[in-house]
C-alpha cells in the first residue's frame, strides 16, 4: 500500500517538476508530526517549482500544511515535526540531505525568509542596524561598521524614513509595518535568489498591507528575485502572484498560472474557495462558504481528502486518491474529474 502510494506521488513529482532551470524544485516532500494519535502527515507528498524571477503563491486555510511546507524547504521544521521523505533542490543542492554547514551558507544568503509577525521575529535586545546587517557580517565577512552602513542603505531602499536615525532604534520603537520593512531589508541584505515570505502581511493593516505587497512586487521585478509567498488570502494571490499552488489537507490540489486558475478553476476546493471571497465589483452574488470541516490529518479519509465536503463527490471519489494531472498546459488539478461540473 505504502509503496504504490509512493509510486504515485513520485509520478506526480515527475509530471509537475520538469523545468531543469527551476530555481527551487520540491519533489514529493513529506513532513510528519509525531503526536499521541500517531504520525500526522502535515505535508503529504508535495511537489512544486519556483522558477527564476517569478512569484509563486501557496494558498490554503489554516492547518492545510502551507507553513509546514515553507519551513520544510528551509529545513527549519522543529520537533515533533520532521521531514519523512522527499527532495528540495536549490541550485543543484538537495537541502534535505545538506550538511548544517551548507545550510548555514545558503540560509540568509541565497534564500531568505520573512515571517508573519515581524515583531516576534526581530530580536528585542539588539538594535535594528545590528540585525539588518547581521547576514552581511555572517556571509560576507563585513565589519560591524560597514554592515551598519549598508543596513542603513537597505533600510532606505525599503522606504524606512530617517534611516540614519532609525538604524540605532530597537524593535519596540518600530510599528508593525516598519518592522516588516526592516525584516525585508534584512532578507535582502545578501541579495538572495529566493525570498520565502510566510504570510508577510497577515498581521498588518490593509493600508500597510498594500504598501508591503507593492514593495515585494517591485523588488521581485527590479532584482529578478524568485518569491515563494505563503498566504491564506486569495486577494493577495490575485494581486501579486504569477503562479499559485492551492493546498488542502497536506496536498497540492491545484497548481498553475494564476490567471488560468482564477478564470477556470478545476478542483472543487479551489472553486469553493474562490466563491468564499467577496468580489467588490459584484453585489449581485454573495459569497458562500464551504460546508463541513477540514479532515483530521491523523486519520485522513480514504480516497480524496476533499470528498466529504465536495458537492460533486461520487463513490469513486471515496475510493480513489487522486493526484495532480495536467488539465491544460501548465495547469494541474488533483481531481478525478477533469472538469467536475
Amino acid at each position: 500500500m505504502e509503496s504504490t502510494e509512493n509510486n504515485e506521488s513520485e509520478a506526480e513529482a515527475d509530471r509537475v517538476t520538469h523545468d531543469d532551470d527551476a530555481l527551487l524544485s520540491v519533489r514529493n516532500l513529506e513532513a510528519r508530526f509525531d503526536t499521541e494519535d500517531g504520525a500526522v502527515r502535515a505535508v503529504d507528498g508535495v511537489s512544486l517549482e519556483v522558477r527564476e524571477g517569478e512569484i509563486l503563491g501557496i494558498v490554503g486555510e489554516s492547518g492545510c500544511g502551507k507553513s509546514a511546507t515553507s519551513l520544510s524547504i528551509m529545513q527549519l521544521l522543529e520537533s515533533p515535526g520532521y521531514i519523512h521523505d522527499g527532495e528540495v533542490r536549490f541550485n543543484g543542492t538537495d537541502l534535505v540531505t545538506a550538511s548544517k554547514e551548507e545550510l548555514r551558507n545558503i540560509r540568509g544568503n541565497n534564500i531568505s525568509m520573512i515571517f508573519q509577525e515581524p515583531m516576534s521575529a526581530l530580536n528585542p535586545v539588539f538594535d535594528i542596524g545590528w540585525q539588518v546587517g547581521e547576514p552581511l557580517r555572517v556571509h560576507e565577512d563585513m565589519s560591524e561598521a560597514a554592515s551598519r552602513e549598508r543596513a542603513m542603505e537597505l533600510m532606505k531602499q525599503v522606504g524606512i524614513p530617517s534611516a540614519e536615525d532609525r538604524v540605532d532604534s530597537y524593535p519596540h520603537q518600530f510599528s508593525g509595518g516598519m518592522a516588516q520593512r526592516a525584516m525585508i531589508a534584512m532578507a535582502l541584505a545578501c541579495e538572495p535568489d529566493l525570498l520565502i515570505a510566510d504570510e508577510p502581511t497577515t498581521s498588518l493593516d490593509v493600508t500597510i498591507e498594500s504598501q508591503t505587497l507593492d514593495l515585494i512586487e517591485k523588488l521581485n521585478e527590479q532584482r529578478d528575485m524568485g518569491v515563494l509567498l505563503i498566504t491564506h488570502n486569495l486577494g493577495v494571490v490575485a494581486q501579486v502572484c504569477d503562479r499559485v499552488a492551492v493546498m488542502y489537507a497536506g496536498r497540492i490540489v491545484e497548481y498553475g498560472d494564476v490567471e488560468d486558475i482564477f478564470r477556470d478553476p478545476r478542483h472543487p476546493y479551489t472553486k469553493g474557495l474562490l466563491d468564499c471571497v467577496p468580489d467588490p465589483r459584484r453585489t449581485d452574488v454573495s459569497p458562500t462558504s464551504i460546508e463541513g470541516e477540514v479532515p483530521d490529518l491523523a486519520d485522513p479519509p480514504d480516497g480524496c481528502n476533499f470528498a466529504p465536503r465536495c458537492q460533486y463527490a461520487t463513490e469513486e471519489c471515496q475510493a480513489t486518491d487522486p493526484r495532480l494531472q495536467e488539465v491544460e498546459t501548465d495547469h494541474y488539478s488533483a481531481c478525478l474529474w477533469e472538469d467536475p461540473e
Partner: protein
Amino acid sequence: MTDEPILKVDDLQKHFYENQGLLTRLRPDQEVKTVRAVDGVDLTIQEGETLGLVGESGCGKSTLARSVLRLTEPTDGSIRYRETDVTEFSDRELRSFRSEAQMVFQDPFSSLNPRYTVRETVVEPMKVHGIGESSEDRDQRARELIERVGLDSEHLDRYPHEFSGGQRQRISIARALAVEPQVIVADEPVSALDVSVQMQILNLLNELQEEMGLTMLFISHNLSIVRQICDRVAVMYLGEIVERAETATLFEDPKHPYSEVLVSSIPIPDPTVERDNITLEGDVPTPIDPPSGCRFHPRCPKVIPPDDWAHDQELWRRILRLKASLESGEVNLDAIRSKLESQTESPVSEEDVKEDVLEEYVIRANVEGADRVQIPPEVADDLARALSAVFSDDDPVEILDRSYSSICESTVPSESDVSDHRSVNCHLHDEELKRDQQLSTVVTADEH
C-alpha cells in the same frame, strides 16, 4: 414605531493614561501621557439595524465598543439606551442592562472558559440574569439555542477544545443570545476564522438578527465583510468618526479620502485586473499626540494645498511630510552629516546635508518603487531657506508655514451632512469652505 434610536452615543471619550505610576507623579519633569483612544464620538443606532464600525487597528473601534457596554468606563460623554443613560447606571442597573446588550468577541479560542462544557457556558448567563424557571427549563433553552446556532445537542457536554474555530464562535453566539438581548456588539467576530467558514457565521448572525429583531453594532477592519452584513457604516480613524453612510453608498461613492483608500484596498479576486489602489504613505500616527487639524492630513492623498499652489499634488504632500518630519525632530542632521562623512571620508558642507535631506524626503530617488518628483526652482529656494534655518537654530517649520500651510493642518474639519443619513468630516466637503472659496474667486474675478 418611533424614530428614537435604540442607542445614542454622544461625544464619547475614552482616554488611557501612560506613566501614571507613583514615581512619575512625584517627578515633575515626567509628563503623564494621555492616549486618546476614543475622542469625541457621536453614533446613533436605530432599532433592528446593523451598524458597521470600520477602521484600522489602533483606531479605537474596540475601545468604543467596550465603552458602549461599559466594559471599560468611558472618560466622558453619554450613552443613551432607550430612555436611560448607561453612563449613570448603578451596578445593579448595569447588570440588568447586560441582559439587554451582549457582546461577541473576536477570538473564540480565548473568550470561552476551557473548564466549562458547552452546556455550562450557555446556562451560566441565564442563571446570572435569572432567566428560565428551573434548571430543566434552562437546559431546554440551552439545547434549543445550540441547535439554533447550527450545532448538535450532542455537543452540549463537550469542552471548547474539542471544537473548531467556527464551531466555537457559534458557541459564543449562543452564549450571547442566552439572555435574550436586544443589542449585540460583535467585535471582529469572524476575523479569526478561515474564509471558508466566515460566511457561515455571518449568515447565522444575519438570520438571527432578522428572527429576533436584534440591533447590532458590528466592528471589523475588513470592508468586504462589513458590506455583507451592515445597513450603515461609520468609518473611524484615530479615535474619531470621519464618515457615516449607508453601506451601498459608502462603497459606491466614498467621500472622505480615508474611506476612499479603504474601499480601494478591498482585494479584487481577479488577477487580470490591474489594481489602482491608493497606497497610503506612513503609519497610523499615535493617539498620544494626534496630528493637528484633520487627523488624517499627514497621510491624506488629497490634502488641500494653499490656494496659490501651482505644482502637482505629490510634491505638495512631500513638502508637508518634510515639514512634519522637521517638526517631530525625526530629521537628524548630525546623523546625516556623520553618515555622509563616513561615506566620502572628507568634511561635509551644510549644502551637502541639505541636499541629502531633500533627496530623501522630497525627491525620494533612493527609495525603491517611489516616484521621483522634480523640485521647481522657486520651491527649491524656499526649502533651502527653511533647511538653513536648522543650522542657524531658527525654526524651519515656521519658515515653511509662511507659504506652505494647509487648512487641513490648521483647522479641525466639522461634521457636514452630505445628504440624508450621510455625513463626512473633511474640508473637501465642507460646504461653508466651498462657499467662501467661491466668494473669493468671485471677488478676484471682479477685480480683473
